[in-house]
């Protein structure tokens, strides 16, 4: 069963005659539990695609369907709520909230939703990611790899439909990168978690179950 589907997805920036087609008729489908890598050179449109999938930006044409939500039809407020329930984000620069400690960062999306975090699940996740001893640390006391693990934990915590990872290893050295990718892979398998990861590194892309190549805003096969 496909958890994410785009049909004729198009995104344009600017106005005539200077239209830039960031995405042009993209049709992709991702299955539940898949670990997919989206690869492409810089400027190919992969970040735009990720923003579309995560409901951060609205398409100019076509549709995005995630977990039976038609994103184009949601209001801004509903989109935010959709995001915190169905999407987990992992950013290249971790994007942790500096005034919150590790634990608070992890449970923030859940608490913003007014729900109680599933403590056993959180424990499981933090144990898997090796964060048990760092729960009360502030983000600025952690290394890059540790911070990225926190953001993975944050993405996992609300058991989202999909995790969207934008160059998750972009700021990390190769050894740490490998560790993080492995963790992503393990979590994908262990929690049957759908993960869509953007990268421009073919080595990292190889670790994924499937690779989608984007070139000039189109899916290349």
């Amino acid at each position, binding site marked *: 069963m496909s958890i994410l589907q785009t049909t004729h997805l198009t995104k344009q920036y600017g106005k005539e005659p200077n239209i830039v087609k960031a995405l042009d008729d993209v049709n992709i489908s991702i299955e539940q539990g898949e670990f997919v890598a989206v690869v492409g050179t810089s400027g190919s449109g992969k970040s735009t695609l990720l923003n579309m999938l995560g409901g951060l930006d609205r398409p100019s044409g076509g549709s995005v369907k995630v977990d039976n939500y038609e994103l184009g039809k949601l209001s801004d*407020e509903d989109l*935010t709520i959709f*995001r*915190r329930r169905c999407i987990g984000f992992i950013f290249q620069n971790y994007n942790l*909230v500096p005034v919150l400690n590790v634990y*608070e960062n992890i449970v*923030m999306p859940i608490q913003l939703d007014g729900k109680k975090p599933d403590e056993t699940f959180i424990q499981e996740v933090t144990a898997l990611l090796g964060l048990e001893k760092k729960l009360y640390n502030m983000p600025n006391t952690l290394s890059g790899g540790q911070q990225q693990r926190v953001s993975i934990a944050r993405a996992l915590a*609300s058991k989202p439909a999909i995790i969207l990872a934008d160059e998750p290893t972009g700021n990390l050295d190769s050894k740490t990168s490998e560790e993080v990718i492995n963790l992503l892979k393990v979590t994908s398998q262990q929690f049957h978690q759908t993960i869509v990861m953007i990268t421009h590194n073919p080595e990292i892309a190889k670790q994924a179950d499937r690779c989608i190549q984007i070139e000039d805003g189109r899916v290349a096969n």
Partner: protein
Amino acid sequence: MIRTLTNRSFQKNKDRNLVAALAIFLTTMMFTTLFTLTQSMGQNITEMYLRQSGTMAHASTKQITDAQIEQIAAHPDVVSFGKSLVAGIAENERLAGRQLEIRYGSDQYAKDSFAYPTTGKMPETKDEIALDTLILERLGVPLELGQTVTLEWQEGPSTFTLCGWWEGNLSVYASMAWVSEAFVLEACDNASAPKEGQILGLRMMGITFSDHKNIDEKVETVLRDCGITDVEFNTNLAYTAEIQYSIFRENLPMYGGMLIVFLAGYFIIYNVFQISVASDIQFYGKLKTLGTTTKQIKKIIYGQGNRLSLIGIPIGLVTGYLLGSVFVPLLIPNTEMELTTSANPIIFIGAAVFAYITVLVSCMLPARLAGKVSPIEALRYTDASDNVRKKRKKTENGASLYGMAWGNLWRNRKRTVMVLCSLTLGLVLMSYFYAKNASFDVEKYLMDLTVADYEIHDTTEKGQAISDTLLADIAALGTVEATGRLYSAEVELTLSEQAKNNLRAFYTDERLKDFASYDPSFPSWKEQFDYVLDGGENTYTVYGVDGLILEAAASDNYILNGSFDTEKFAEGMYCLAIGPSTDPSDTLPTYSVGEKVQIADREFEVMAVVRPLQPMVSGVSQQVFDLPLVIPADIFQEFWPECNPRKFYFDVADETMEDAYRLLTEYQQTKALGMNIVSRQSMAEQYEAETRALAVMGYAISIVIALVGVLNFINSMVTAIISRKREFAIIQSIGMTKRQLCQMLMFEGGYYAGMTLIASYILGTVTVGVIVRAMVEGGFSTFHFTLLPLVCCTLVLVILAVMLPYVCFRNLEKQSIVERLRAE
């Protein structure tokens, strides 16, 4: 290149420029206002004293010869001089009450004396005269050149033709009647000096130097150079050190204000630049990597400061000057003189320089920060100072909105503290000034000056008493609510041993010496004092009082010793002794309480010693050495039935206040020109005028400080939100709704307001409850505990704290999350 960078970076930061330019504008405006006020105050006070002394000349002499005048006039230090030749004083009946001096004066002398004709000219021929409008009005001469004017003086009546006039001014001690030199010379038979004890033919001279500093020394030099020893020049009162010092003292609060403005301006401008530099730190890091030197980076920042000054300072100068000219009349309650707002270039130069210095000082630290940044550090730099932050936070409460807001508040500790301090300072100062003003007790102040709606004191009637007809007229008003009578008589008495001992104990050598140093009447006082102590009989004043004046004179505030019992006093066996007005000491220089005193043929026991009450004693006693006693008015009348009251006090119903006033003034005009009328209302008005200046100044300063606090608050809130644009986008992307974000920001504003208010209430309570209470002790004040301004500001602050984040948030919303996420 540096210039291009400065320009570009200037254009990039539009919002910051607005805030900074506004801050510079406000700073300049306040500086200009204060400079305008100090200058104008100085100028007006000097002017006031100049008029009092009657001349603008730096130094003047009242006795000199023509030869000496010529000699001094030729001295290089003397910039200008005026010469006058006195004829005499006009004695026309219609001029009673206003001195008119008939003199010849050179043009310069007339100008220096505020008496140069504005219409017509100075007299040239023997029959010409120039006068001021006040005198012409009194003489009944129409304002028209060529009119005939006759003046009576010691040489008989002289008739002149009016050749010029100017606007008369009552603040100058006397009016001038300018006549020609020929007229005076003829009158004194060309004598070169006046006859002994005469003023006819007296030569006077006023000289002016290049500036009014060290006039005494300059005069000395001139006289020494000319070899003149028998002429004494007086330095103009307005330019003496004492007056100049008093001007400085009047201006002290203004100088304090300048310091505060400097600090306040510094806070804002520094904040603006600090934030701007911090957010552009990567940019400066890149510049450094590319080889820009520290000096050049600093230049970029100072360059931006200069540009902002160029916009802010001129606007500030203009508005500040206008504001100053509005304030001048409020600060100087004197209404008789036409007030001028000084347009001295010092105002503009000074304010501009001060404002510019503030800008430079404010840019100093940010420039250093930008200058010393290392390229690598710059990439990691965030506005918050990371190093002082806690490493771990033990909590499992998770991410609550208010918790996050609290955390955000302390990301830049220094700034937050600064905002809190300036807001609190403003509020506390405002409370202080308000409480202090509110403590001034008009009633207490008036009590010392008047005890009733009206007080009349007739000094023209025979025996200086109030006529029965007037008393009957007042009673006929029908609305008199309370009255008070005051009689007085002079009684011959010999002091008791007890009283003499009290006097000896009170007037120690030290006190006597002190007394002698300031009171010119001391020798005659001392003579009687010694005589009395030797057992001599002396004349003392005995007052007979009842009603309003007795109540006031024997009120608790005025009792120095003993206690007052109205009923017992009325029996006629007791009297009150009036003691000193100064602070009570162990012994009082009068009778002791309980002592017996013989007045007329009755013996009175001293019930209490009271402070002299002005409405009772002023203008009554003529004795140099006096130990006044007070007895009931009825008893007084028994002793001296022929006496009428010296003073009469009465309260009338409010609706007939005007009628009573009309009755009194009519009587004054028609029957008793010398009758003195004191109305509580006019006293209250005078009081208002006297205290207004202080109040206005106090409020102005506290409003400025509070304004600075608010500006700082707005600035730090806005920049905190703008600089966290991206962070908000992140939180939004992982699921914080707009509502929640908005709430969080409002929490932050709320914390600011809350903490400010808590601090203000605590400090305000301490300030008002302790400091103000201590300060208003005694004097004309009654302490009231009030934090009214604080209560008023509470609402304003809370609204601001909630509205501001909301407005910022709306602004933020215009950019999409993706845009903000990308923005680096």
